[in-house]
């Protein structure tokens, strides 16, 4: 890989400066010019931290010949004395779509149009969103307007790509040399391979319909590319060929935010690829995980504007999370830098490229080290794309891509005069123009005024005072000429004196003018004081940045809870074991485990919690949840066993905390019910504040969601959704049989291959890896359990028969609203039931759903759980369990088991949680009252000995949240008063997921 980059560098170098020599010329004589140019008396920043004072930069044919204090200047050199000005390497932006043709979104689609399941293209991968064969060069045309904006912002080279699709193909490197030709400007036609989680806008193909689907698809493409490369395919696939061809290129992945950064990095790790991650600006919120990713980042500087908060009813919409983001986001680059994360800065995501400089300055004022900022724009991007020998510094042999500035590049008062690209000058501000800023005595005819000229040297502003009274004036300064208008006192605002003069020296200039009556007048200005030295740090005092919490929003914690040994004294203990309910009992928690249960236990060193009059239960377990995930359904195919919710766990969902407030400690995040074979589950504990990986239950059993009935046959999806198989319950059975049969054959093929000796393997063709079939084979091999969304008795019965046919058992029927009709068959099959307490009548197939379902199934000897499928209901599953007492007369002890040990059994984690038993995880809830009662309040919720929720603490936090909001609102008002931009307030709508929620969430 290194070798290839080196090769690229060599190739590029070879053509520098000579690219035009062989092109015929018919509009004149050749006019070759291979003279030298030297810039003397300059402060040369060769590379960040390597500075030559009073040095000379010598260039020729677009390349740097030398830089130093003792550079010998040949005769044929055009010398420019820079008089102490600075020279910097120009910037490189790795993430642009410069010069790319516009992506034309496909028309139609949505729920009204007929869905498209197959790919539009033939000869390529089966999925239109895999555009790995796309080449930026084929969509490129040099854009001088855009180039000017980038050049003005200090950029010399950009990497540009087609910003569309999941695999986006190759990018190209272009020098922003507008006076040159593409022969000179195109540095590399395939610089990097680009990827993202976003669907292509050019196709309506429905898969993938989710973030987790996109992740699964990327993995499958990599497996298929390997298989293709190994000669596994008889057919042609130009997209896979492109993946193979691009294998050694640097890979840039548009992730777009902290959790997606980690998700992309995870895929990279699996396939031993070091993605360069295009971040989202919120990386500081999970900086430890970002550091641990060991990835390089491309970071945008589109810091949010303050919210307009003058209308209190609108202001209340803005969440603390969004307010904090305004306050903290400018610190993101500084936090990355101080944690040693390699990153580059990009103009991407900015509304205007012109805002780039001020935003980088903002990042610096929030603590970003200036040298790090320069690295992020020069050496780091050059290294990442393997062009460090040619760009990003002013070393010998590199392109003459450099900036001439009046001073420190990131300083507020510094002017960027010239941006040289490939040895060609692009003037931004005339460095030879006289700086006329200062205070003058202005004499016009017989009248003397005081004139002060302020502002930027290239765009000065005037202020004229007559007898200490300010009068209206306007100043233009262009091409070395001053034009000044003003209205003398007593002349209203419709009559002007007009003055003009050439300036060669700021200390004095004079010329002619026209008075209000049209008479000609002589005038002069003589400087009495030079420009005011603006204190450099003037606007650079670091604003107050509020501390980050985990997650960085309301109820987030500054510090994760500590494990503590605790003794619950004198509680009513609901063991969910054979002991039932133990009155006046102590429970000792040590090292995160339940250490002892009994009367009058000694605390030892443990903290004592007086639980007199209170009830202690095992943590509640929700077998069917859709909180804490960024996606629920991958409905783009009728089977999506390849996707997993584990990929998209969202540790930042407020519903985690809200669930804790209802005593929930463990949940199964299930895929939705958009298709018969859904995706794999994530089994998590609600450790509020931890990152997604740490939420996952350790050594967890594997689960997958299946579904039956109206949702999978798309009964309520609108009139257009009639082409996907299956549309009937008859088809659902056939689909299962087909997939399991294929999985069986797949498994057999692999088992046969794996059974071969090493030598035999060399001769044999390695089977193709198919993530979907692999997952289904796990079911056949009893390594993965099914939790199946189910309603009516016919289909419940059917799935058990299909399982029998393939010699495995269904683990859980979830929802299982007509379970009571086939309880005997379920018992015989050995399947558990996880149901709602009292929901029904929301669709036709729940017409016979009854609240006695749990009781009947329980009485039939089935392991029964009560689940939520709902972020609201899950906060009071204890009460939902209480309803089984009302409906069907389940005993209170058994009712409590339906939300503790029973779901633990169904999830195969009853060896560690779900009951109060010595040796199990201390997942406990302390209640104010009988936990099945409407009057019970969860006082404390503990997971593995750590208290993640405390009722009183929650109330205190509510108060501090409101104080912090108030503080931020005041900060935003003062920002507005200082003239900073504001944005209209907006509220984030928290998505509420159910089984049938189908939206594409990134």
């Amino acid at each position, binding site marked *: 890989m290194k070798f290839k980059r080196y090769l690229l560098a060599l190739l590029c170098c070879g053509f520098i400066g000579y690219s035009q020599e062989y092109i015929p010329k018919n509009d004149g004589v050749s006019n070759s010019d291979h003279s030298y140019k030297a810039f003397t008396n300059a402060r040369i920043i060769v590379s960040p931290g390597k500075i030559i004072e009073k040095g000379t930069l010598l260039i020729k044919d677009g390349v740097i010949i030398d830089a130093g204090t003792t550079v010998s200047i040949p005769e044929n050199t055009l010398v420019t004395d820079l008089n102490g000005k600075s020279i910097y390497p120009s910037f490189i932006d790795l993430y642009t779509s410069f010069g790319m043709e516009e992506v034309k979104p496909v028309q139609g689609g949505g729920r009204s149009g007929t869905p498209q399941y197959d790919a539009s293209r033939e000869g390529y991968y089966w999925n239109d969103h895999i555009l790995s064969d796309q080449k930026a060069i084929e969509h490129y045309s040099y854009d001088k307007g855009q180039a000017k904006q980038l050049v003005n912002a200090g950029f010399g080279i950009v990497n540009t790509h087609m910003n569309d699709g999941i695999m986006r193909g190759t990018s190209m490197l272009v020098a922003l040399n507008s006076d040159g030709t593409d022969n000179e400007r195109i540095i590399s036609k395939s610089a990097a391979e680009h990827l993202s989680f976003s669907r292509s806008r050019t196709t309506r193909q429905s898969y993938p319909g989710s973030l987790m689907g996109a992740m699964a698809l990327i993995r499958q493409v990599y497996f298929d590319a390997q298989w293709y490369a190994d000669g596994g395919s008889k057919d042609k696939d130009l997209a896979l060929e492109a993946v193979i061809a691009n294998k050694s290129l640097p890979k840039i992945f548009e992730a777009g935010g902290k959790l997606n950064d980690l998700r992309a990095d995870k895929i990279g790790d699996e396939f031993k690829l070091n993605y360069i991650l295009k971040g989202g600006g919120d990386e500081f919120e999970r900086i430890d995980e970002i550091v641990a990713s060991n990835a390089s980042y491309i970071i945008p500087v589109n810091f949010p504007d303050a919210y307009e908060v003058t209308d209190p009813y609108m202001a209340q919409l803005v*969440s603390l999370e969004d307010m904090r983001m305004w306050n903290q986001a400018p610190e993101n680059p500084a936090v990355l830098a101080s944690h040693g994360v390699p990153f580059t800065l990009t103009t991407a995501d900015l509304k205007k490229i012109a805002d780039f400089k001020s935003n980088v300055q903002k990042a610096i004022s929030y603590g970003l080290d200036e040298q790090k900022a320069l690295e992020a724009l020069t050496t780091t991007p050059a290294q990442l794309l393997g062009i460090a020998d040619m760009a990003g510094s002013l070393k010998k042999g590199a392109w003459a891509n450099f900036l001439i500035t009046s001073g420190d590049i990131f300083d507020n008062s510094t002017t960027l005069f010239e941006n040289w690209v490939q040895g060609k000058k692009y003037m931004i501000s005339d460095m030879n123009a006289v700086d006329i800023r200062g205070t003058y005595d202005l004499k016009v005819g017989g009248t003397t005024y005081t004139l002060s000229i302020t502002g930027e040297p290239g765009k000065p502003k005037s202020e004229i005072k007559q007898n200490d009274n300010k009068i209206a004036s306007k100043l233009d300064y262009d091409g070395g000429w001053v034009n000044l208008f003003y209205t003398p006192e007593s002349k209203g605002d419709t009559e002007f004196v007009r003055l003009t003069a050439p300036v060669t020296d700021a200390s004095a200039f004079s010329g002619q003018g026209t008075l209000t009556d049209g008479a000609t007048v002589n005038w002069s200005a003589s400087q009495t004081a030079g420009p005011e030295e603006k204190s450099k740090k003037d606007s650079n005092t670091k604003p107050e940045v509020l501390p980050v919490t985990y997650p960085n929003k309301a109820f987030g914690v500054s510090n994760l809870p500590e494990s503590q040994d605790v003794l619950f004294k004198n509680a009513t203990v609901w063991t969910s074991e054979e002991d039932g309910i133990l009155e006046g009992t102590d429970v000792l928690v040590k090292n995160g485990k339940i250490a002892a249960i009994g009367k009058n236990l000694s605390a030892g060193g443990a903290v004592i919690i007086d639980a007199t009059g209170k009830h202690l239960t095992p943590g509640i377990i929700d077998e069917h949840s859709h909180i804490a995930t960024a996606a629920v359904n991958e409905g783009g195919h009728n089977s999506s066993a390849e996707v997993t919710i584990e990929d998209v766990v969202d540790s930042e969902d407020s519903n985690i905390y809200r669930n804790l407030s209802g005593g929930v400690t463990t949940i199964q995040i299930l895929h939705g019910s958009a298709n018969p074979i859904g995706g794999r589950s994530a089994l998590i504990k609600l450790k509020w504040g931890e990152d997604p990986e740490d939420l996952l239950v350790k050594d967890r059993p594997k689960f997958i969601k299946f579904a039956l009935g109206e949702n999978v046959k798309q009964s309520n999806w609108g009139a257009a959704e009639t082409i996907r198989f299956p549309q009937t319950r008859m088809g659902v059975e056939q689909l299962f049989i087909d997939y399991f049969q294929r999985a069986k054959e797949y498994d057999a093929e692999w088992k046969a291959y794996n059974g071969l000796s090493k030598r035999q393997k060399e001769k044999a063709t390695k089977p193709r890896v198919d993530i979907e079939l692999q997952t289904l084979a796990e079911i056949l091999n009893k390594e993965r359990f099914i939790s199946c969304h189910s309603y009516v008795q016919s289909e419940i019965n059917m799935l058990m028969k299909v399982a029998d046919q393939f010699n495995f058992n269904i683990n859980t029927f979830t929802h299982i609203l007509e379970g009571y009709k086939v309880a005997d068959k379920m018992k015989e099959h050995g399947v558990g039931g996880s149901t709602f307490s009292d929901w029904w009548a929301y669709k036709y197939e729940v017409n016979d759903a009854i609240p006695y379902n749990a009781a009947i199934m329980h009485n039939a000897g089935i392991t029964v759980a009560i689940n939520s499928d709902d972020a609201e209901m899950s906060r009071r599953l204890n009460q939902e369990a209480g309803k089984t*007492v009302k409906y069907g007369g389940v005993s209170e002890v058994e009712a409590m088991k339906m939300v503790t040990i029973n779901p633990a059994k169904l999830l195969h984690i009853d060896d560690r949680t779900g009951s109060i038993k010595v040796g199990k995880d201390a997942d406990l809830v302390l209640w104010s009252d009988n936990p099945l009662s409407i009057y019970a309040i969860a006082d404390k919720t503990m997971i593995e000995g750590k208290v993640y929720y405390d009722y009183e603490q929650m109330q205190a936090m509510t108060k501090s949240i409101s104080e912090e909001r108030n503080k931020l609102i005041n900060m935003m008002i003062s920002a507005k008063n200082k003239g900073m931009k504001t944005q209209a307030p907006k*509220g984030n709508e928290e998505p509420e997921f159910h089984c049938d929620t189908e939206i594409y969430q990134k």
Partner: protein
Amino acid sequence: MKIFKHTLKVCLALFSIALNAQQTPAPIQSESILITGATAHIGNGEIIENSAIGFADGKINFVGTAGSADKSAYSKVIAAEGKHVYPGFIALNTTLGLVEIDAVKATDDIDEVGAIIPNVRSLIAYNAESKVVETMRPNGVLMAQVAPRGSLITGTSSIVQLDAWNWEDAAIKTDDGIHMNWPSLYRRGRAWRGEDPGIKKNDEYESQIQKVKDFFAAAATYIKGDQSPRNLAYEAVQGLFDGTQKLYINAAQEKQLIDAMNFAKTIDGLKIVFIGGDGAVPVASQLRDNGIPVIVSRPHRIPSLEDMNVKEPYKLAGELVKEGVTVSIDVSGSMERMSTRNLPFYAGTFATYGMDKERALQMITLDAAKILGIDDFAGSLATGKDATLFICEGDALDMRSNQIPQAFIQGRDLSLETHQTTLWKRYSNKYAGQK
């Protein structure tokens, strides 16, 4: 354990009547009945221990202690020692009987075309034989206001009792109120137009309010005239001007509430009731002083803002009651019809987070009746009122003990059987037979 035994008894009792149980409306009560020994929850905040509640001809004729009752005056005495008697619960702003199965459009009669359609009447679409409606009774919900849904002025509600042959039979107050949604302060970004999908300001808020004002001004003018040609929409709101109807305004935000109150003041004699009321606490004293009740959103919902106390929806009723506002509970929301039977538990939740249990009970009995203007004949255990009440094994606001062996509407002894209990028994019997 005690509860368990009770449960068992109830189950047995239910089984024993299973054979003759029908979902048929109960016949007129021919007996005079005295319920003795129970704890009577009057509905006005008071309790009578060891009570006697008597009724005849559909009306309550005795409320007192067991000792003071004349048993001989009654043809039937129900001994209810250890049990509780409650006035029938009243659910407000329901859509009971307007939709049978959510996903089946053919069963959906909830939302008519048009922005201002006060003339649309819920009562005539009310399905008295709905399988959802019959599941209310076993939980103590015996009366309901049925209201249409829609956009601006959505139609006319009526109040029904929940054991009837048809809608005429069911109506206990016809066309009691006009319902409207106060324009929203916010709107969602239209993603399909390339807007950020977040929630933002509704720029049409003022113009939408003006539309409402214009309608009422025009209606008032019409009513004063010869009313020819007829205008059904104007005619439909006549009761708002003569005080025979109330205007039910769905509004959550404080600003909406203030704007709506100011609007109401411009119409002489207009009686308004708020539904929702998330932002009502800061304006509680105004609501109290102007006698404007609030039917607060049910507690079983997620806080409307991420930064809110996670228990915020549970606290709303208590905070308003503390300020002296008349409060009841709105059952609307997701899964609203099937969950309307959880009304007692909504009240129980409000009791847990900020008020006395009897006070919470009052919200779904006497105060609900007062808001609806039916407290002269319903809403509490008081002589002269309808004998619409039930016996409960324990605390009816708690699912642990909401076990109802017997319930009466206007004295009629209700069947507490439902489609659901029928299935329960059918399959329990099936498995009992297998053993």
